[in-house]
């Protein structure tokens, strides 16, 4: 070429070559422009890629990149304007179809144009900070088609109309919808958001606002929630079919806001169908739906929880203060357990085992169980009932289940020491009367109490079991050593109880019949012979006896009676008539006990081995009692119970209370001393908090009592008040 000749004019060489073919750039561009036209006209089969690529390459190489790039922009813009016209011309429903087809064409063309201009894309575009070809094609489509005034609003209206139609039950072309929304997403998230998503969310909000208003007027709560759930699922499904994944959160929050959050209070408190009636009727499905829907909105769950809690507290309060229920402790506790079961099941089945709901349930129970200060007694009575007879023939696992449930109630108790008192009494009765169903069950209950409250709580209870066991051994020893001497006298079964472990009431000993006294003395000598330094006291108020009796027509019965009753009946071996005063003198039984014994011997139908003059329900001090030789019974063995309320009588209750209060004093003092020993100096309020937290597992100490204990400790010089600050206490070692 001529460039070769001019080689020595180095500076000129570059200029010269351009001059050589001034039309080079224009000619090459014409070729490429023609190719772009052909590509848009679906006529690309005649084009040679290699030639076009080479031409584009050469243009960039010869510094015509700018011309190539601006040429591309102009040509593509021209085509897009034409496409816009044909889309605008599309009628009615064909509008979206046409848009979709043209979008497909444009993408294909864009791909091919990018192939041709690949070299420009790689070199010219980055170094000149231009938009890459693909992105340029999308931007031009956006500016010329989507943002064209005649298309933009029409497109949006059609999309929103289609969605509205689908919401009202029509079937629409979801594939087309998907393609169009995909196009908007491809054009950039801002295009999708501004040109579609925002208006879509706005329209949806007003749609659901109107719908929820209509529904709440005519539906009950359950039905409304069903409809809301269906709408929610529809929207989620819509997103998965033809919207951007990121829209899901936004549209569901619109539905949630309009359909749930705005009507939350009204739904929960809806008459006859709201949360309370769902709870009452165990509507698990509705409750579960409510939980799942409300979970989605702020404060939703706390709304449910608050209503549930107040309902629970209200019903619980009624339950524990209902005088009818209080008559039967077993029934009372059973009601509590049933209530707990019911809510446990609701939380498990409908509320996803939500921890916060469980906590609300627990705190509600704790609240109302402790409203009634007899709860500890009743729970112990319930256990007593179950362990006496209720669990007969029940499998071991079921027993465990019952005990576990009781333990759960036990946990709610604030006055656990009161429970302990009662439990001890009841256990003692069971053990001594041999009424306990199963030793294993008893022990299992003790283990549960131990794990819950620690060793101290149960050490005395365990001591009671040990006593029972050693007593059996002792009796065996007694009979094997003295068998020959005893002969035909009454059989004695002694339970040696350790003082302190058992809840013994100091009772005035009664006069035992002579037959019994003999063998009792023998046992005393035997026992003290093996265990020196001990003291035995007979607890005649706690024993039982089996005696044989022969009545008028020669019928024989075995009577199962208490020790007191035995003493009374034994008197009739020598006479047929005794007055109250005579009996009292002979036996020296305390009047209240004696009256009860006589009542059960003379006034219970079918068990009246004695006859009273005059006939009346109550025992008076000038009554006379006769041996009832007309006594009849179908049974050979007759059990004569003691007329005694299982439940404690009012004075007994006061007594137990008082004893509990007495027992608490040393515990509180011990806690104070423990705390002060380690802290040395402390102010009053801190002591109270610390003591309360230390004793919480047993009972809730009253601050006034704590204060009294502190004062008592100051008197006894364990503590002193600080001289400068009267609120401070000092530990005196």
């Amino acid at each position, binding site marked *: 070429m001529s460039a070769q000749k001019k080689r020595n004019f180095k500076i000129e060489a570059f200029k010269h070559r351009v001059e050589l073919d001034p039309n080079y750039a224009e000619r090459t561009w014409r070729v490429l422009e023609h190719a772009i036209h052909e590509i848009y006209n679906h006529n*690309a*089969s005649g*084009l040679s*890629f*290699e030639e076009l*690529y*080479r031409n584009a*390459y050469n243009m960039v190489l010869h510094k015509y990149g700018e011309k190539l790039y601006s040429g591309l922009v102009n040509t593509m813009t021209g085509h897009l304007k034409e496409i816009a016209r044909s889309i605008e011309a599309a009628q009615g429903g064909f509008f979206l179809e046409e848009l979709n087809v043209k979008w497909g064409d444009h993408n*294909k063309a864009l*791909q*091919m144009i990018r*192939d041709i201009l*690949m*070299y420009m894309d*790689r*070199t010219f575009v*980055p*170094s*000149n*900070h231009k938009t890459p070809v693909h992105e340029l094609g999308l931007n031009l489509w956006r500016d010329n088609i989507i943002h064209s005034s005649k298309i933009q609003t029409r497109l949006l209206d059609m999309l929103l109309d289609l969605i509205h139609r689908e919401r009202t039950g029509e079937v629409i072309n979801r594939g087309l919808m998907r393609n169009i929304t995909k196009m908007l997403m491809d054009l950039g998230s801002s295009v999708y958001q501004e040109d579609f998503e925002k208006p879509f969310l706005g329209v949806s909000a007003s749609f659901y606002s109107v719908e929820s208003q209509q529904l709440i007027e005519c539906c009950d709560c359950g039905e409304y929630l069903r409809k809301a759930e269906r709408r929610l699922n529809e929207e989620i499904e819509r997103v998965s079919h033809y919207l951007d994944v990121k829209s899901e959160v936004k549209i569901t929050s619109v539905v949630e806001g309009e359909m749930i959050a705005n009507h939350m209070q009204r739904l929960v408190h809806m008459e006859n169908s709201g949360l309370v009636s769902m709870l009452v009727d165990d509507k698990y499905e509705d409750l579960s739906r409510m939980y799942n829907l409300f979970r989605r909105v702020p404060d939703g769950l706390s709304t449910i929880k608050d209503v549930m809690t107040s309902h629970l507290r209200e019903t619980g309060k009624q339950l524990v203060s209902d005088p009818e229920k209080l008559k039967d402790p077993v029934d009372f506790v059973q009601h509590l357990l049933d209530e707990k079961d019911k809510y446990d099941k609701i939380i498990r089945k409908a509320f996803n085992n939500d921890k916060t709901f469980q906590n609300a349930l627990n705190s509600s129970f704790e609240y109302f169980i402790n409203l009634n200060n007899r709860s500890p007694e009743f729970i112990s009575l319930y256990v007593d009932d179950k362990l006496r007879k209720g669990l007969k023939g029940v499998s071991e696992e079921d027993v465990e289940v019952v005990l576990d449930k009781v333990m759960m109630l036990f946990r709610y108790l604030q006055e656990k020491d009161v429970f302990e008192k009662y439990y001890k009494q009841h256990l003692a009765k069971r053990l001594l009367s041999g009424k306990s169903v199963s030793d294993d069950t008893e022990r299992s209950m003790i283990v549960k109490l131990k794990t819950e409250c620690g060793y101290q709580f149960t050490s005395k209870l365990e001591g009671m079991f040990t006593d029972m066991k050693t007593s059996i051994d002792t009796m065996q020893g007694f009979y094997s050593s003295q068998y020959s001497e005893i002969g035909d006298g009454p059989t004695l079964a002694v339970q040696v109880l350790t003082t302190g472990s058992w809840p013994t009431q100091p009772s005035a000993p009664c006069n035992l019949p002579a037959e019994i006294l003999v063998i009792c003395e023998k046992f005393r000598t035997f026992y003290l012979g093996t265990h020196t330094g001990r003291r035995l006291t007979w607890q005649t108020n706690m024993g039982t006896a089996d005696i044989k009796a022969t009545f008028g027509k020669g019928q024989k019965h075995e009577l199962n009676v208490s020790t007191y009753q035995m003493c009374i009946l034994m008197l009739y071996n020598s006479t047929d008539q005794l007055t109250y005063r005579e009996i009292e003198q002979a036996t020296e039984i305390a009047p209240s006990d004696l009256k009860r014994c006589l009542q059960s011997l003379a006034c219970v139908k079918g068990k009246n081995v004695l006859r009273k003059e005059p006939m009346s329900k109550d025992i008076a001090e000038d009554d006379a009692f006769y041996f009832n030789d007309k006594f009849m019974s179908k049974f050979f063995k007759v059990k004569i119970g003691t007329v005694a309320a299982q439940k404690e009588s009012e004075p007994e209750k006061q007594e137990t209370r008082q004893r509990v209060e007495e027992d608490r004093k040393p515990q509180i003092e011990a806690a104070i001393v423990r705390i002060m020993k380690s802290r040395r100096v402390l102010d009053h309020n801190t002591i109270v908090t610390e003591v309360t937290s230390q004793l919480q597992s047993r009972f809730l100490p009253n601050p006034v009592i704590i204060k009294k204990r502190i004062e008592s400790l100051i008197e006894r010089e364990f503590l002193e008040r600080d001289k400068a600050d009267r609120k401070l206490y000092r530990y005196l070692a």
Partner: protein
Amino acid sequence: MASRRGRIRFNVGGKIFETTATTLANAGRHSMLGALLDDSWNPRQPVEGEAADAEYFIDRNPACFAVLLDLLRTGELHVPPNMPEKLLNREALFYGLLDQVRAARWGPFDGNRLQLVDSVSGRAPGDGTAIRAGPDGGCCVAHGSMVHVYDWMLEEHRPISLDYQQVNDVGYIDAESIVISARERLGKGDGGMGVFSSSTGELRHRFRVSHDNQVKSFTAGALSLGSSDYKIFASCKGRCNEYGIGVWDQITGQQVDFFYEPPGCSLGDADKLQWLDGDKCLMVATLFPRTDNCFIGLLDFRDKSVNWSWSDAGTSVSLSLDEKRVLHAIAIEDSRSICVVNQYDDLGFIDLRSNAGGVRWSSRSKLTNRKAPNEESCYPKLATHNGQLFSSMNDGISVFCGPEWVLTSTLRRSYGGSICDFSIGGDRLFALHSEENVFDVWETPPSLTI
């Protein structure tokens, strides 16, 4: 189109090549060959029998095509000795295979396996200020008021000229953008910092500093580009004693923060800034102060506090000849220490965990002191990369490895004078010599495929 059994025939500049579709797939869709074979450019399905004769004509150099085709087949690059690299690179660019060529050229950086691959002579007369490696294997060299830019093929681009402002430091934001900090000239209101295009040398953006909402001119010194949070740090000296560290956003170019110099810590004169990703703080080292003592500190920008600092204040009272003076410093986050070097090329370490610790010197100078008495020496420099420590001394660079920093390799070229600066980046090491204005390029050979 693919013929029977996936064979494809090319006619490149008159020479016939046959290969398979599988081999060509290695070129990728976004290459010239990928597009050439794409269905959209080959609409007609070839009729059996006829297809065997179909061939693609490409009007290019056949010898280069052979090399590139071999690269696609094997993943290795073997350039015949008579083929200029420029030619091959040009052809690779045409086919869109330049990235593959670059990837086959050299392997991941390993200080102990470096080979000298090139020495590039610059146009400027000696005394370069700084050399910086770019992220893609290119580099730039600052001389006076000029910055010469080389791409990874070591082609020189249009140099960046700053109209007689002295360049203090340079750094790459990305392969396309270079930040330059320059000294302010009295009475001109220029200087400061700017972003320049590495391919065209154009100024893209100027960074501004404002104090009390007033834009002020300033002299920018050392630079540090925080990689994780896209920030640029620079030591700044304003006319009215507005000394401190300025912070800008790499993306918006706006000033986001300014750390004013607290008393006793010279920040505006700092010679070395290093952003510590783990601690989220900036190491500042001022080693040639105007008046005060040498100072190294860690700055926390969140609460504008100096977390940790060290100074030679105590030791410089009697600066005798034997006194060891810290000349360069680099923080090694992994070992929680700052490595320093003195005029005898001794390495020293300062523990970052204690605030009052001194320098623990290692006595390397006794072992390797080979300083020629009359040779003009440069200040030593330090760098770290992937747990390896690099230290320049005279005309060589020492590589240290392991927890005890054992000397494992030495990189040396016998002429060009001592090394005034070096930089590691884009899996390459560039070392700039002070006397001849020549820089060496070291890279790790690609690992052998067995």
